[in-house]
């Protein structure tokens, strides 16, 4: 009876069982290839396993390298916005905003962006953050076998996509932000629709939390799996929900407030052990805090212009373009030559869905950047996977990798 109990319960007992038997075993190399349902996007992990236990691993990203930097050296500043959309493609607005802020820093107009545009940027960033966390948690839950939360979250995400589609014209890759502001104003019924959507979204969250938070299977597979200490996380450059789950209270929106985040009240959830369950809880709590911020922003948003009224930066209004020759020439020069940015280098960072998303822009005075480097949080967080999974079972790789939220477009740029 005692032997059967050992075999059935828990992983600690299984480890004892391995050592007791003293069978001669060889290490085996297994490939979790680039096309794998649990590798979000494409990443290859070459595992060296001892039975089911991972001894060492080699994570190989780069199967989606789409040359963001090289393309951005050949495109004007405004033409880079679609490329930034496709970096972290489940929270595209945040990438747009981050890149726009970097170029505005170089132009020296960062504090002159109109207040309404700043509020709109915050609103769409938080909506994108919600879609990011919904997709991450939903996909991770699906990989552990919980298909229903995935479909519920996808339903919620679909509502958000519809709302942003009315705003910007696209469902996923918006290219909505411009240097100096945003491209279009909010639609007339945006406030009511978003408020209604937030109410419905809260019901969805309540349902999913009821399904997952105290679920025996979910907790067994996530709790205690992949703990990470705070010092290691900081030395590995980890940021975002994964770092906060390790217990470090670092959120760029609080520590280096940008746009109008200093006027909004919100809390930053911080975990304790850094295991997968903590990361899940941090993400769910961040969704709730984002909804809180959205309500405040909708209440406080002022009326006003949505793009900077500076001929160096913004396209002229359409009425003038069609009627005056000066405005038409200005429009033409903006499109063909791009916004001329004075030579210099600047680095600007925002809180992305996965951590600190920064853009390091080097300009040479023309309308195309000399270099536009993206500090991608997924790339730096994925580096920790190799360390986290060693010693765990192969099936633990799935929740660990899911909760790191590696987005292929951001990791491989």
């Amino acid at each position, binding site marked *: 009876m005692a032997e059967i109990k050992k075999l059935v319960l828990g992983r600690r007992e299984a480890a004892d069982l391995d050592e007791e038997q003293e069978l001669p075993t060889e290490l085996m190399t297994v490939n979790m290839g680039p096309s794998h349902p649990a590798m979000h996007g494409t990443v290859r992990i070459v595992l060296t396993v001892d039975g089911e236990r991972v001894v060492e691993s080699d994570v190989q990203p780069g199967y989606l390298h789409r040359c963001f930097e090289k393309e951005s050296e*050949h495109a004007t500043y405004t033409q880079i916005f679609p490329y930034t959309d496709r970096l972290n493609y489940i929270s595209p607005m945040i990438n747009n905003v981050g890149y726009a802020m970097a170029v505005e*820093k170089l132009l020296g107009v960062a504090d002159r962006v109109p207040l309404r545009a700043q509020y709109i940027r915050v609103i769409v960033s938080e909506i994108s953050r919600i879609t990011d966390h919904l997709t991450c948690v939903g996909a991770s839950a699906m990989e552990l076998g919980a298909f229903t939360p995935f479909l519920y979250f996808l339903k919620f995400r679909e509502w958000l996509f519809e709302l942003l589609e009315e705003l910007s014209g696209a469902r996923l890759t918006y290219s909505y932000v411009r240097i100096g502001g945003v491209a279009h104003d909010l639609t007339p019924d945006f406030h009511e629709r978003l408020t209604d959507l937030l109410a419905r979204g809260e019901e969805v969250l309540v349902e999913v939390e009821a399904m997952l938070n105290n679920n025996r299977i979910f907790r067994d597979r996530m709790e205690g799996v992949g703990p990470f200490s705070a010092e290691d996380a900081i*030395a590995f450059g980890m940021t975002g929900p994964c770092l906060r789950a390790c217990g470090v209270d670092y959120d760029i929106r609080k520590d280096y407030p940008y746009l109008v985040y200093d006027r909004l009240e919100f809390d930053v959830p911080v975990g304790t052990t850094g295991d997968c369950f903590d990361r899940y809880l941090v993400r769910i709590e961040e969704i709730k805090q984002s909804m809180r911020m959205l309500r405040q922003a909708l209440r406080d948003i002022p009326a006003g212009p949505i793009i900077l009224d500076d001929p160096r930066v913004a396209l002229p209004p359409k009425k003038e373009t069609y009627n005056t020759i000066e405005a038409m020439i200005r429009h033409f020069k903006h499109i063909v030559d791009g916004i001329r940015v004075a030579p210099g280098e600047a680095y600007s960072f925002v809180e992305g869905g996965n951590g600190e998303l920064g853009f390091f822009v080097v300009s040479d005075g023309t309308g195309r950047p000399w270099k536009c480097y993206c500090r991608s949080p997924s790339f730096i967080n994925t580096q920790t996977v190799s360390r986290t999974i060693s010693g765990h079972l192969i099936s633990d790789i799935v929740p660990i990798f899911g909760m790191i939220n590696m987005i292929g477009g951001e990791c491989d740029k």
Partner: protein
Amino acid sequence: MARRVLDALTARFGDAIQSTSSDYGDEVAVVRRDKLVEVARFLRDDPAMAFNLPCYCTCIDYLGLEVLTVRPTSPLAVPSVPARPVDDRPRFAMVYELRSLVHKHRIRIKVPLDENDLVVPSLSELWPAFNWLEREVYDMYGVAFEGHPDLRRIYMYEEFIGHPLRKDYPKERRQPLVRREWTDE
């Protein structure tokens, strides 16, 4: 805000710090390559500095950079004085950025590198994050890192020849691994 970091660096390392600047709110120190590891260790271990979070590292290729020195006053003005290209400057510059969660400041370190001597000591023992970041720079620019535990390509495949982000690598030069044989259908 991090001016005192720059002052402490210049006070301690003297002329290994070739220049400092604070444009656009970012503090930058240009450091000579042979003192890079010492400077980095000082920045990490000194309690007044405490740069514990590595931000990123990348490389800039200045080949053919002609900086327009005239700031156009309106979008209709064409710069009338094109600057001469700076040929005597070193072609590459490594850029590191570090952040301190304790004191809430950050610093950027630039290390100028000459094209014929493209070697830099690795910082991956000090901060493990630089492991993959330096591999990326090696892959894209060809900078060799001394003391890196595992220097191989990360984004491109092993059979790729060349370093794509250099300015003399054309954007559309493909090196395909596999193509299918074309049939009539």
